[in-house]
C-alpha cells in the first residue's frame, strides 16, 4: 500500500516552486519505495472563491486528488505570516483545523521549516513538528507512519512512538503552565517525550541529496533558475540573524561536486541562470575556483551566474568580473545599521571602509545601481545611528561621483529599511521590538536626512513586522488568535493585498491576549521561553553572553578567527568537524 504525502507550501505556486528546500524534500520522499509525494500550494483568492463555490476541495498538483485523501499532510513553515494560510489550506481541504478534532489516522498533519524552531503558536493545529533539516528525519517519519498504519495503531499510539524519533516534537505530549504575569511557569513533557527536542541536520552535507532533475515550471516563478547550495550554516554570528544560528554547524560541499551538480542540473533544466545559495556566499572557501569552473560551462551557453548573498567586506574585483561575465545583475548589500557602533552591537563586522571600498570597485567596474538594506529599531539604536544611515548613503554617492566610469548614465542608490524583529534562538531573543510609532518617527527622521535625489528611500510598514514579532516569539495561547484570524478571512498575509492589521488586533482583543506582551517586552534573563521545547544546538549560555556583549558594544570574531564554543559542533558525529 502506497504512502501518499502531500507536501504543502502555504503560499502561491510562484513562491513555493522557488524554494529549494521543497524541491529537496520532494525528491527524497519520491525516492522512497512505496511513497508518492505530491505538491500542494495555496490558491490565490479568486481561485479559492471558485473552488469554494463549486465545492472543489484543495487538491494536489500531480494527481489532482483531494488533500484529505492523503496519509501525511506536510507543511513547510518558512515565515510566520504564512501561518493563517496553513489553517486556510486545511480548511479548504476539508480537514479539521485543530489537531484534537482529527482523532483518526490518516491524515497525519506535520510541519517543519525554520519557523518550527518556535512551534508553539501552531501547536494546536499540527500533530507533530520536524525540528531541523528534513533530509534524514523525513524518511524515518514516513517509514514509522507506514508501519503504524499497517499495524493498525491509533493516532495517539503512533504519536507516542513518533516522539521517540530524534528531531520530532509532538506538542500534545507537553503540558505548559503559566505564571500570573503571563510568562511560562513550566513546560512538562509526558510519556517520556524529550525536552528539549534537538534539531536534526544533514551531517554529511557532501553526500546529502541534491535533486538535479527537478520540475521545471512552465509559468514564470519568482526564482526561475537552477540553484546550487554551497554550504549550510554561517561563520559570521550576526546577532539578529536566526538563520545564522539555526543552520549551524557550518557544512560545505566541495567545488568539484558543486560544479558537477551545476552541469547536470543546467543540462536537465535548460535554465539560463545559476544561483549560488548560502547564507554568505563570499565566505565559501573555494568560491574563486568554483566560479571559474562554473563559468567555463556557463559562458558559452549564455547562462548567467548570480550570487544573492554577498558581504560588503570581502567582495573582490575578480569576483565582480565573474558575476558580470555573462550578464550584469543588480548589486545589493546589507550593512543593516548605519553607524559603526550599532554594527558592532549586532556583530555585523562590516566597516564603513569595507562598504565604500566595495562600492568603489563596483562603480569602477561600471555598475550604476546599488541597493543598501538596513534595519531600524535594533537594540540600543539612537537617533545618531538612524542619521548615520543617511550619511553612509551620501558617502556612497560621493564614491560614485569620484570613481564612476561613466557618469552620464547616472546612479541609483536605494536605501531600504525594515523594522527589526527579535527572533528565537538568537542573542536578541530577550530584546524588545520598538513600538510602531517609534519606528515611524525614525523613518521620518531618516527621510528628512536624505537630501540627494540620487538616493531613493523605501521603508516597510511596521504593522506586519509587529505581528511577525508576536508570532515568532509567541506561545500556544496564540493558537486561538490564529484560528480567529483565519475564520475572519485571513490568508496569504505575506501579501500586502491580503494582510489586515485590524483583523489581527480584533482577534487579540477577542482572545484576551495583549500582543505587546509578546513583541514589545524585554524578557528577563531566566524566563522560560516557549521555544525552550526545541534546541538548535547553540546553547542558551552562548546566546546570553552574546546579548551582554551586544549591550556592551563588543564584537565577537567570526568562527574562522576563533571558535566561540556555541555548542553546535556537538551535532556532528563520527569525527566530523564544523566548517571543514
Amino acid at each position, binding site marked *: 500500500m502506497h504512502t501518499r504525502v502531500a507536501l504543502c507550501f502555504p503560499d502561491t505556486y510562484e513562491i513555493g516552486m522557488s524554494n529549494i528546500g521543497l524541491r529537496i524534500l520532494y525528491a527524497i520522499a519520491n525516492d522512497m519505495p512505496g511513497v508518492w509525494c505530491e505538491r500542494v500550494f495555496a490558491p490565490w483568492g479568486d481561485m479559492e472563491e471558485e473552488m469554494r463555490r463549486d465545492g472543489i476541495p484543495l487538491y494536489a498538483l500531480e494527481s489532482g486528488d483531494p488533500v484529505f485523501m492523503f496519509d501525511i499532510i506536510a507543511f513547510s513553515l518558512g515565515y510566520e505570516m504564512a501561518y493563517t494560510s496553513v489553517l486556510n489550506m486545511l480548511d479548504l481541504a476539508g480537514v479539521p483545523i485543530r489537531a484534537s478534532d482529527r482523532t483518526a489516522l490518516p491524515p497525519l498533519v506535520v510541519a517543519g521549516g525554520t519557523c518550527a524552531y518556535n512551534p508553539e503558536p501552531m501547536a494546536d493545529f499540527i500533530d507533530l513538528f520536524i525540528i531541523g533539516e528534513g533530509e534524514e528525519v523525513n524518511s524515518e517519519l514516513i517509514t514509522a507512519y507506514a508501519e503504524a498504519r499497517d499495524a493498525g495503531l491509533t493516532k495517539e499510539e503512533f504519536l507516542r512512538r513518533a516522539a521517540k524519533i530524534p528531531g520530532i516534537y509532538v506538542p500534545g505530549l507537553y503540558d505548559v503552565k503559566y505564571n500570573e504575569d503571563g510568562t511560562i511557569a513550566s513546560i512538562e513533557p509526558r510519556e517520556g517525550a524529550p525536552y528539549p527536542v534537538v534539531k536534526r541536520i544533514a551531517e554529511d552535507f557532501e553526500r546529502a541529496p541534491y535533486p538535479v532533475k527537478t520540475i521545471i515550471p512552465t509559468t514564470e516563478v519568482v526564482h526561475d533558475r537552477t540553484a546550487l547550495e554551497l554550504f549550510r550554516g554561517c561563520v559570521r554570528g550576526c546577532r539578529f540573524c536566526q538563520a545564522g544560528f539555526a543552520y549551524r554547524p557550518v557544512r560545505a560541499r566541495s567545488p568539484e561536486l558543486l560544479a558537477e551538480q551545476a552541469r547536470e542540473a543546467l*543540462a536537465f533544466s*535548460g535554465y539560463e541562470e545559476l544561483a549560488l545559495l548560502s547564507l554568505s556566499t563570499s565566505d565559501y572557501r573555494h568560491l574563486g575556483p568554483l566560479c571559474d569552473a562554473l563559468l567555463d560551462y556557463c559562458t*558559452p*551557453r549564455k547562462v548567467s551566474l548570480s550570487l544573492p548573498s554577498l558581504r560588503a567586506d570581502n567582495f573582490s574585483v575578480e569576483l565582480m568580473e565573474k558575476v558580470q561575465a555573462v550578464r550584469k545583475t543588480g548589486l545589493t548589500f546589507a550593512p543593516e545599521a548605519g553607524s559603526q557602533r550599532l554594527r558592532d552591537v549586532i556583530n555585523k563586522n562590516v566597516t564603513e571602509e569595507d562598504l565604500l571600498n566595495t562600492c568603489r570597485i563596483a562603480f569602477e567596474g561600471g555598475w550604476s545601481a546599488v541597493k543598501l538594506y538596513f534595519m531600524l529599531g535594533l537594540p540600543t539604536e539612537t537617533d545618531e545611528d538612524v542619521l548615520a544611515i543617511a550619511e553612509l548613503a551620501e558617502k556612497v554617492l560621493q564614491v560614485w561621483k569620484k570613481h564612476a566610469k561613466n557618469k552620464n548614465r547616472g546612479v541609483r542608490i536605494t536605501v531600504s529599511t525594515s523594522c527589526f524583529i527579535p527572533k528565537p534562538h538568537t542573542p536578541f531573543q530577550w530584546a524588545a521590538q520598538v513600538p510602531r510609532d517609534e519606528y515611524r518617527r525614525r523613518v521620518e527622521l531618516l527621510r528628512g536626512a536624505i537630501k540627494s535625489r540620487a538616493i531613493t528611500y523605501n521603508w516597510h510598514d511596521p504593522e506586519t513586522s509587529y505581528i511577525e514579532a508576536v508570532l515568532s516569539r509567541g506561545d500556544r495561547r496564540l493558537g486561538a488568535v490564529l484560528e480567529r484570524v483565519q475564520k475572519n478571512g485571513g490568508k496569504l498575509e505575506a501579501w500586502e493585498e491580503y494582510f489586515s492589521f485590524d483583523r489581527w488586533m480584533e482577534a487579540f482583543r477577542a482572545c484576551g491576549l495583549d500582543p505587546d506582551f509578546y513583541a514589545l517586552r524585554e524578557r528577563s534573563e531566566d524566563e522560560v521561553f516557549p521555544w525552550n521545547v526545541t534546541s538548535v544546538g547553540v546553547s542558551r549560555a552562548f546566546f546570553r553572553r552574546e546579548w551582554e556583549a551586544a549591550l556592551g558594544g563588543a564584537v565577537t570574531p567570526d568562527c574562522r578567527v576563533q571558535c566561540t564554543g556555541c555548542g553546535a559542533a556537538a551535532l556532528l558525529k563520527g569525527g566530523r568537524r564544523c566548517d571543514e
Partner: protein
Amino acid sequence: MSRHRLLFTKTGRAVYISHLDLMRTFQRAFARASLPLRHTEGFNPHPVMNFALPLSVGTASVCELMDFDLLAEPLPEDTEKRLNDALPEGVRVLKAYDSERRFSEIKWVCVSVRLEYDKGLPRDLTARLRALYEREEVLVPKRTKKGTADFNITPHIGALTILSQSDCALIFEARLSAQNPTLSPALLVQAIELYEPDLKPDFAAFTRLELLDGALETFR
C-alpha cells in the same frame, strides 16, 4: 547565419501557457535538447526566436510557426525528436525545416470556433450566425494601443463552414484576417453578445487550424 522554422501544435492543458511563458519554455527546451540558440549581441543578450502570430491564452493551435537561429548549422535531422523530448505536454513540434518565406506573407488564419450551449442550441443558430457575419457592418470594440475603438469585423471574415453540430455544441470554421488587421476569433463571439444576445454561448473555445497566404495557399 541560418534561419530555421518550426511548425508546432499547442493543445490540451498547454493552451493556458501564455505567449511570454511559451517563449521561455522554448528557450529552455532548446537548451535541454542541446540545440544552442544564437543570441543577440549587446548588453543583455537574448535568444533569437520569432513567433509568427502570438497565440492568446486559452486558444489552441495545430499550425503555430516559430523562427529561430542556431549557433551551429545546419539543422540536425533529429531536431523534432530532440525538442519533443524536452517540451512539456501539449506542445509538440511537427516539423523543423528551413524556409525563405516571410511571416508578413501570412494573410489568413483558419480557426475553428466551438460554441457551447448548456441548455441546447438556440433555434436557427447557424442561419442567424451566417446572417450576422454577412452584414455590411458589425462594430465591435477592439483594444488598440490608444485605448478601444470600434472595429468593423465583417470585411475581415472569409469563408464560414459548419464543421459539426450536436445537441449542445456547434463547431464552425472561419477564415479570418491574420494581420493588418488581426481579427481575433474572440471578437466573433463578442459580436454575438452585442448583436444577437439571445445566441450568447455559455462557453466558447477556439483552435487555429491553418495559416494561408494571399492566394489562399497554405503558408509554411
